[in-house]
């Protein structure tokens, strides 16, 4: 997308907004941007596994966040888990990049709240040093409850005021098969109903982490425990890459699967 081109925006339920090519949501009522799964330092983790990637994903992440801030002018940014990738101790590159990102927020007077994800073990010292709020396992603001999604969080006990839960962790993507048998994958945001509550699953911010093709997976193959629950019903998927496209979830499960596609052989 070129400069100055208007980006499509869309309202989800209530005060939640999303925007084309951006992997975060904006909660207008509380003036907060929410994003998740940045996985800073993923290249180094890959390198440890023997995969040497030539470029860094951090400049891309930073650019996206800057653009998002520019448009929404938020008071707060909530990082809903997996800010950093590493399983082991934080490396130099990660320190550099995490500190750079935090200083971006502080220079613009944006408050930062970090919710703990499954990759964030070694993050605490960095955050402590910079005085950033760290919430474990969840954060509740008004009608919203934020948690990363790798573990189940008790919902009922947040003073009965929670209406909308927001998670990450899943890295949801939609796979679409065309008539020639080619699969394209698009990052998406998921919406679901859970008892009386709404649930939103954010797309991953990391541009290189693979996504899980949620429309090709059975419910019990999904990563986040809450998505596997019986009472949970996925209602809608919105592709955020290259435009905004909302699909009723069930429709995606059937239309893009091979059994329902025509074969391509000419005879």
């Amino acid at each position, binding site marked *: 997308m070129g400069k100055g081109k*208007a*980006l*499509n*925006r*869309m*309202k*989800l339920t209530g005060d939640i907004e999303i925007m*084309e090519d951006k992997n975060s949501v904006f909660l207008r009522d509380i003036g907060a941007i929410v994003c998740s799964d940045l996985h800073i330092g993923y290249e*180094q983790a*890959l*390198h*440890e*596994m*023997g*995969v*040497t*990637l*030539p*470029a*860094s994903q951090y400049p891309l992440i930073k650019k996206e966040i800057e653009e998002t801030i520019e448009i929404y002018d938020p008071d707060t940014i909530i990082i809903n888990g997996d800010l950093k990738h590493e399983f082991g101790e934080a490396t130099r*590159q990660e320190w550099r990049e995490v500190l750079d990102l935090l200083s971006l927020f502080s220079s613009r007077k944006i408050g930062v709240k970090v919710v703990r994800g499954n990759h964030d073990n070694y993050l605490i010292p960095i955050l402590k040093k910079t005085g950033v709020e760290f919430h474990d396992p969840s954060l509740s603001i008004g009608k919203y409850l934020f948690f990363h999604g790798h573990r189940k969080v008790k919902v009922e006990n947040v003073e009965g005021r929670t209406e909308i839960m927001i998670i990450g962790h899943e890295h949801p993507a939609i796979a*679409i098969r*065309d*008539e*020639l*048998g*080619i*699969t*394209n994958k*698009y990052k998406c945001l998921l919406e679901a109903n859970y008892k009386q509550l709404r649930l939103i699953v954010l797309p991953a911010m990391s*541009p*290189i982490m*693979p996504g899980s093709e949620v429309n*090709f997976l059975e419910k019990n193959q999904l990563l986040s425990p809450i998505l596997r629950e019986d009472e949970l019903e996925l209602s*809608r998927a*919105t*592709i955020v*890459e*290259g*435009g*905004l*496209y*909302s*699909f*009723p979830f069930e*429709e995606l499960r059937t*239309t*893009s*699967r*091979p*059994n329902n*596609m*025509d*074969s*391509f*052989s*000419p*005879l």
Partner: protein
Amino acid sequence: MISFAEKKYTKEEVFKRLNPLVKEWFNSTFENLTPSQSYGLIPIFEEKNVLISSPTGTGKTLTGFLSIISKLLTLSEKGELENRVYCIYISPLRALSNDIYRNLETPLRGIVEIAERKGVKLQEIRHAVRTGDTSQYERQKMLRKTPHILITTPESLSIIINAKRFREKLKNVKWVIVDEIHSLCENKRGTHLALTLERLQNWCNKKFVRIGLSATIHPLKEIAEFLVGYENGKPRDCLIIDVNYIKQKEIRVFTPVKDLVFEDPEKTTEKMYEKIMELVKRHRTTLIFTNTRSGTERVVFHLKKMLKDQIEEITEEEVAAHHGSLSRYVRFDTEKKLKEGRLRAIVSSTSLELGIDIGYIDLVIQIGSPKSVTRCLQRIGRSGHALHEKTKGIMICMDLDDLVEVAVMVKEAYANHLDKTMIPEKPLDVLAQHILGMAINKKWTVEEALKLIRQSYPYRNLAMEELVQVLKYLSGGHTDFEDRKVYGKIWFDEEEGVFGRRGKFARVIYSLNIGVIPDEVMIKVYDENGKYVGNIEEEFLQRLIKGDRFILGGKVYEFMSARGARAKVKPAFSSKPTVPSWFSEQLPLSFDLALKIGEFREKMFSFIKEKKEKAEIIRYIMENCRTDENSAESIHRYFETQYLFLKSLKVNCLPTHRNILIEEFTDEKGRKNMVFHTLYGRRVNEALSRACAYLVGEKIRRNIGLTVTDNGFSLIIPGKNAPNPLEQLTPKNIREILGKAIRKTELMKRKFRHCAVRSLMILRNYKGHEIRVSRQQINANTLLRISEEIPGFPVLKETYREIMEDDMDVKNAVRVLEKIRKGEIKIARIETPVPSPFAHNIVLVGLSDVVLMEDRKEALKRLYGEIIKKIGVKTMYKPTEQG
């Protein structure tokens, strides 16, 4: 200078020079010198580089060793044998090394016995095998008691030259023998070896003698250059000993039924097995070649079943399979039985093509086309092992295109027209591996490294710039300066022009990740009854979802489930595939042979046009192509139907190598199918088809499906109208267009991963654990996207080169386009109600690939539109455009 041997030495002349003990042993074992021995022994004794090309069973291995043994013997008599390696013998197969070990041991033991009898005191001449399987203990032992003759594989040798202590033992190597060089030079294993040899030469105090042993191959001059390498821009000296035409051959083409099209396929198969069984019974041991492993399994299964059902003089145990997927134990057991003459029939795909000593074979049966004259002769050449016996082969055909191909192949085999072997040119991924190896050993200046690398034939034209790109890549030059310590595998100072070792893991990375065989995890595929169907690659499996249908071993299967390295499918023979099968077990038809088939087509069509008597045409085919009557009848009928079909449409352009016919028809789904009869072999067609698909796709902005075969290709085009892409394709623009097209194919993603592994961008083995996770951790698409950001990235460059030049044949595609420009090849475009007979195989084969010309966005919009239509707009949220 490369020259051909002319002087044939008599036995007396030879043994006047060789050590008398060798003479005595030889006379006690053999009567006469074989031709390769009478041409080769003396030049090798005189320490000349020699390439010997001859069919198997003509004594070339012994030729390679005998003069060397003689010299070592002389040293040993004088007690002058030192504790170091004198001779390195390299073989592409581990199993073969074991075999040679036995073959080398026999003469050595024989000579020692003679010496003992005569009371001659000898130092022991030691020999040992060193491969990846050699234990730490044995390696240690080799340091203390070093083998004088070291038997190894190309991969192990590349590790040995980096082994701190053992490489000292190689300082004065005198001879290097490269066996089965024909199977090495045409792929990256050979490229890898060529560089290893130059690195070894660089390490050695003196020039060593190179001896190459090859089966029938063409052109020998180039193979010789590949063996000996270059010095100061010119090939080193080499003497070629070509003793290929000494064996008489008898080849026949056979078709089981009169009419391959209308006969019930089951009956055709039944008749084929009857014929095979009859042949097996008439011979002592029959070797049967199929073109695929699954084919091998099927043939063995059927033969055994036949033997079970009836009382025959042959038992089930006397029939066996031999291919790479079998466990080592089973394979060795089969080889042993074969050598002992306990088998009546042995079925193989490619594994028995190589020189494993297989004992007595008196007949070779080839099912389907082996795709090149050279391979046909190599396979048939496995029969009649003893020198004076005829080689005898029966080619069985089950498909019309195969039949025409084989008929022409046999005709050309009798004329000794071999296909040209292609040697890959300067692959940058292989180079990256060796640069790491070189950097570990010492500090280099870039000039000195370039000089060494250019001494190997594949890299003789390497540019300084290309080398520098690889050095930059390996040193992490694409990352920030401070991160290079982390990401760099070597250290490189571009300004000073020097490079060397970096990091404590370099040596481990080198020894665990060297080699060129792609990191392909094969998944075995079984049907619901647990019957083995074939193999697919793990990457292909990953994109399958339940219900997908794909082609495996020529048949359609529906994917059910997968567990570990096993996949379950069910037959869906009557349905059509839903996903393109981008893996192919099939060998490609060679360009040279395709042209010969074109000439044959011209001849047939002109016979029919001139209304030549049918009987006469049949006689022509039977005599020239050595076919039976069924085959000749089928060929004649095939050409006649094609001719009449086109005549009924008033078309004069008959598809040959000089006429490209384009047939167009609309399929039942309203898509346009364009069938191109381009008779140039599959590798050229791979190139033409993708470039054409790209050009059409560019016009109509939709994805184009394509099918490629040996005799042509087809495009499946959504929509009614399409331009003729061949008109826009020129010798000048094809490389550029093909590059763009390849970028948009599935093939590219897969090949890029292979090259990334070979270039050490993705390590197979790192810090002690094998890496399988890397596959799941990052997808090929992302890797590609990131790599494209770096200008001149060698991994990417090599991927394009490999696809265009090794998998495809862009050079000959350019030649074809030049001929089109000059009017030497004509093009005609016709509409047909149904595909013509010659088009059937092209249309039936199922998609080979897709060139993705549609924007991801467009594909999404289309699906969105479809769903909205289906469920009504009201339930959907509508995006709003805001500022």
